Structures are given as structure tokens and as C-alpha cells.
């Protein structure tokens, strides 16, 4: 990421250098005994930290307006601190005023831009949250994120279910869990390589994300199996959504890397709902188990139908 920002870093380094050269040109070095080391430590430390923040920000962020503001702000704070530090080593003649200007000017300007940057960062984060909402639902754990699809994995699914299920015990509405399995997925891996397979999974996950509601959560269960939590959803709606997803996938013309070839797929979906009978409350495991069973049945049904058709 840093190489996209090399001009910004170059600008900061140049400014600091210019300040140093200009200071040395107009003033004399202090004697060793005159230097207040406590001040050096605190002012130097502040400048160094501002620099560390700048590098971290530049390292983790793509270019754009927010990054521009943040880096301008932190650069200003750094330059102010740096000039302050130079003061500790260099005695400026009274006639020279510009060093004060750098010190007192850069700081408020820097703080202004930093504030502006953080404000826009906040706005940006809100809009990213809105996008991530269907993937993470109010709880963030970057370690559980799946490498292929950027969805959370089965661990996260179990955690979410364990958290959500008690709420549903008292509510009248059920929670639905859908397990979505791509039919003949291994054919893709076999014929086109596993990178193509990974890409297909990623595309399918985006596709499914588009067709679910704000409060639903999509996870990657394992392999080519996705899990979809539908809170406050009865059987009718759950099955409607399942058939919608199934139709969506059937009409999705997936393009392979190498040829202008379109591949069409189908999915089998297993639906499980929390039991309304409060004497046998569902655990995450039992719900997943039932959804897995329903999925096996759906696959079997599909196979029978295919055989009859053929």
C-alpha cells in the first residue's frame, strides 16, 4: 500500500529537511549544557508518534479523499513537532520569526485537517458497515473471515446462532437456517482448477448477498456450502427465499477465466426452522444438524428427479 503514497512521504521528508536546513542557515547550535533533555524527549516523542501514525494510516488505506485529509493533518502535526524539536538544539536569533510560524501555524492547520479526515472516515465507515451488515450482523471478528469469499465461517455461524436462539425462544416468530450447496461443484475444480472454483464461490456469495434482506446473515459453512440465517422468519417466507435464491443461481451466467464460456449452476437448499415447542429448545448444533439433513433430502430428491427426466 505504501508505494501508492510515496509522493506524500517524499513531501513530508522534503519539508522536514527544508526546515532543518533553513534553521541551520539562520541560527547557531546550542551548547550541550543548554539542552533540556526532558523537552527533547517529549517534543521529539510527539513528532515521532505523529510520523508513526502517518505511516500506519498510509500503509492500511487506499488513496482517496479521506486518506488525503488524514495524511495532511498528520504531516502538519509532525512538522510542527519537528520544528519544536529543532528549537531545543538551535538558538534562533530574535529577528527570525518564521520558526514560530511553522510551529504555531502547522499545528492548528494539521489538527483541522485531521479532524476533517476523521469526520469523513467516520462517514465512510458507516457506509462500509451498511455494506458489511449482511455479512457480520453487529459483531466483528476479522479472524473468522474466510479467505475465499470474505464471508464468516462455521465458527461464527455457531456463535451467532447461540447468541440469537435464546431471543427466539420467547418470540412468536421462528428463526430459519438455510444451508445452500452448489450441485456438482467438484466438476468445476476438476475441469477448471481450484482457483476457478474459488472464484465461482466468491461470485455466488456476492449474488446471494444481493438477494437477502438487511437483517439476514450469510456465512460460508465449509467447501461449497453456504449458511444463511433468517431471523424472525416463518416457513413460508424461508421457502420462498430459498426458491428465489435457487432461481437466481440458475440464471447466473458465470464466466470462466480463460474462455468466453458461460457456466450455469444449480443449488440444493436445506431449510430448518427453530422449534416452536419451547420444551425442546434448539441449540446451534441441533439446528445445523437438521438443516444438513434437510439438505441431504433435497439432494436426493433432485437426483431422483434427474434420473426420471433422463
Amino acid at each position, binding site marked *: 500500500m505504501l508505494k501508492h503514497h510515496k509522493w506524500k512521504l517524499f513531501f513530508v521528508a522534503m519539508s522536514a529537511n527544508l526546515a532543518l536546513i533553513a534553521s541551520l542557515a539562520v541560527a547557531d547550535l546550542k551548547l550541550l549544557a543548554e539542552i533540556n533533555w526532558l523537552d527533547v524527549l517529549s517534543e521529539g516523542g510527539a513528532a515521532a508518534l505523529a510520523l508513526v501514525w502517518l505511516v500506519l494510516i498510509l500503509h492500511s488505506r487506499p488513496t482517496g479523499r479521506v486518506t488525503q485529509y488524514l495524511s495532511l493533518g498528520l504531516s502538519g502535526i509532525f512538522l510542527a513537532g519537528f520544528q519544536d524539536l529543532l528549537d531545543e538544539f538551535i538558538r534562533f536569533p530574535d529577528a527570525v520569526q518564521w520558526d514560530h510560524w511553522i510551529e504555531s501555524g502547522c499545528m492548528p492547520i494539521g489538527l483541522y485537517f485531521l479532524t476533517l479526515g476523521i469526520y469523513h472516515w467516520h462517514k465512510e465507515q458507516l457506509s462500509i458497515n451498511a455494506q458489511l451488515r449482511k455479512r457480520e450482523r453487529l459483531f466483528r471478528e476479522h479472524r473468522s473471515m474466510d479467505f475465499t469469499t470474505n464471508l464468516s465461517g462455521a465458527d461464527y455461524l455457531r456463535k451467532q446462532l447461540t447468541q440469537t436462539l435464546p431471543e427466539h425462544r420467547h418470540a412468536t416468530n421462528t428463526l430459519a437456517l438455510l444451508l445452500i450447496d452448489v450441485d456438482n461443484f467438484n466438476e468445476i475444480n476438476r475441469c477448471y482448477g481450484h482457483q476457478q472454483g474459488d472464484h465461482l464461490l466468491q461470485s455466488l456469495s456476492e449474488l446471494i448477498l444481493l438477494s437477502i434482506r438487511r437483517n439476514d446473515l450469510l456465512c460460508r459453512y465449509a467447501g461449497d*456450502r453456504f449458511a444463511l440465517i433468517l431471523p424472525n422468519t416463518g416457513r413460508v417466507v424461508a421457502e420462498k427465499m430459498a426458491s428465489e435464491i435457487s432461481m437466481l443461481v440458475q440464471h447466473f451466467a458465470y464466466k470462466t477465466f480463460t474462455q468466453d464460456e458461460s457456466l450455469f449452476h444449480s443449488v440444493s437448499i436445506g431449510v430448518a426452522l427453530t422449534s416452536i415447542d419451547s420444551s425442546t429448545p434448539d441449540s446451534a448444533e441441533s439446528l445445523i444438524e437438521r438443516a444438513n439433513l434437510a439438505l441431504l433430502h433435497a439432494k436426493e430428491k433432485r437426483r431422483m428427479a434427474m434420473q426420471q427426466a433422463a
Partner: protein
Amino acid sequence: MSHNLHTAYEDVSPTYKPGKYFEIDTSFIPAHQWPSTMIDLALSRGMEEHKLLRGTGIFFEDIATNNLQLTPQQCFQLIKNMQKHSHSQEFSFLLGHQIFSAPAHPTTHHNPTTHHSTISHEKNNLHNSDNLQQALDVLLAQQIQWMPLLNLRSVYEQDRLVIYWQDACGAETTQIFLLEMMFTALNSLTRWRSGESYPWEFYLTHKKPDYIEQYDVHLNSNVQFSSQTNAMAIARDYLHRPWKINHSDQFASNSPIESHTSTALEFQRGFLAETYTYLQNNIRHNPNLEQTAVDFGMSNASFKRKLKKHHSHFQAQYDLARRDLAIMWLSQKGWTNEQVAKKLHFYDVANLRRAFKKWTGKLPQAIEKMG
């Protein structure tokens, strides 16, 4: 393989002499086969090359040269390194799907001319088998080329065929990875060739893991953990069901066999597996450490050292061999405790019971089918 077992309780058969075995530090596993697939997968999942190869003594550049041969130890280390990746639980299963299926686009490390050598011809056989029985025959005959780190035995038990998978040369913790990989591989092969998912039953000695979802998806849920042995079983009906003709294979069945052969071909099996086989086949001689060492052509101390190098010791191997015989005799042959005790050279039935309880956690009468 199974005929060795049957000789074990026929007193007329001659003493079994150990065959040629490989050790944990024998270089014979061609790096461009499954190890290279493994490395490709880890790299494609964002693992760094130096972390993946750390401590293995493998240089990335050498893999491409196509004549690099790895030791089992290097493979184990490679697996251990892979397992440090944050999403490593699915690796063994993903690899399993690739083991028996030739990729249509060979990976970059493969030199196409030599890649077509021995192994691709055998893949051919496996791919063009007409049914499961044929495929298993090919697999059993060529197991050293496919997966030398696990030793396979197939045994008919009543109405089903059971394939036992056993540590060949000291896999330790990586055995679970290897089992997951090979179970998935065979399941994936039968599914691909038959067009339906076969009702395999899987038995694994380790406890049910946290990442149970991988088993659900890749092995169709029919898995029993904390079992006595690592095995997979299928009803005999499935052995001869015809498979569709494989059109998709890029290699024609008459593809030329090239002279290039891997050194793997000279070996019978891994050192531990050979010790186990020796002990089982010579059980009527009541084998001990001294005699076994002599038959393996070395001193007591050397034999002990060799077992230690493979993370085992004589008693462990002997117990394992006797345990499996006892289970087989009790459950398959329907022998009485007295008969088993006598065959295994126990002083009396009480001693057998005590030993059996120690080996399996159960009493002999609790053993019916494998479980």
C-alpha cells in the same frame, strides 16, 4: 494385501520375512506430485513461501525441477507448517478432491513430458476403472505411488468391504490430516466416477473435532469419531456397480508408458507398517523383540533405535498387531475368548480380557462389528 492376513492363523504357512521398507528419512516421494499440489494450495490461500517451507529443507526452486524426492519427514513438516495457516482446517479436504483427479490445467511446476510418466498412466487406470472393485485393486497395488504415508489393507467383512488406513512411518499428529485427505479423495473419486454419492461409512480414532462442518460437507456426515481403527467401509453391492465411461480424461488409455520410474516402486511399505505386518503374520511364533530384530537384519539396539526414530516402540507395535487380530477373530470369525487367548499366547482368558481392555477400552464380548 488381505492374503497376508489370512496366512496369520494358518499354521502351515512359512515364516513371514520382512520386505523392503522405506523409513521416515528415505527420499523417495516425488515432490511434483501431491506435495506440489499441497504447496500450490497453501500459496494460493495467501500463505508465505518461507513460512510454508520453514524447517523442511525444501527449496522452492527445486520443486520445479521435477526430480526432487522428499522424505516422509519433510512431508510431515510441510503439513505441520500448513496447519499454522488460520484457515488450514479445509486444506486436507480440498487436497483430497485433487489427489485422484488429474487437473485439466497442469500446475506451473509440472513439466508436461515427465509428468506423463508412470503416475499419469496409473491415474489413467484409476480413472478408467469400470467399477469400484477395479479402482480399489489399482489403488492397493499402487498405494506406494499414491500415498505412501498411510498403509492400506482391504478386508471383506460379512456384507461389506472395509479399507483400513494405518500409519506407515510415524506420522504422529499429521495422521489426521492425511486421513482426512485420503478419505475425501476416495469419496470424491467414487462420486465423480459413479455420478452419485456412495454411502461410505468412515471410522476415525480421533475425537470429534471443532471443524465438524468440513466432515459434513466433504464426507457426507457418515463419520464415527473415537473409533477403534481408522477405516472406511462400503456395502459389497457397490463394488461391482458399473461406472460411466470416462470421456473427459485428457490422457488416452493407450498413452505410452515411459521408462522413467520413481524409486518408490522398490518399496513394500513403510517401516512401521512392515513391522506390523511382520508381527501379525508371525503371531503363531509369539514374536519378540530379539527375533524380530534378527529377521529385520539388525541388532536389538538398532531395531529399538529405528522404532524410536519412527516415534514408536516394540510393545506399541506388538499390541497394535494383536489388538487388530483379536478384534478380527472375535467379530469376523466368531471365535471364543479361549481360542483368541491361545492364538495370542495369553496364559489364560483373564489375561486376554485385561490386555484387551487396555488396548480398546472395552471387554472382548463388547466387540461386535467394528466401531
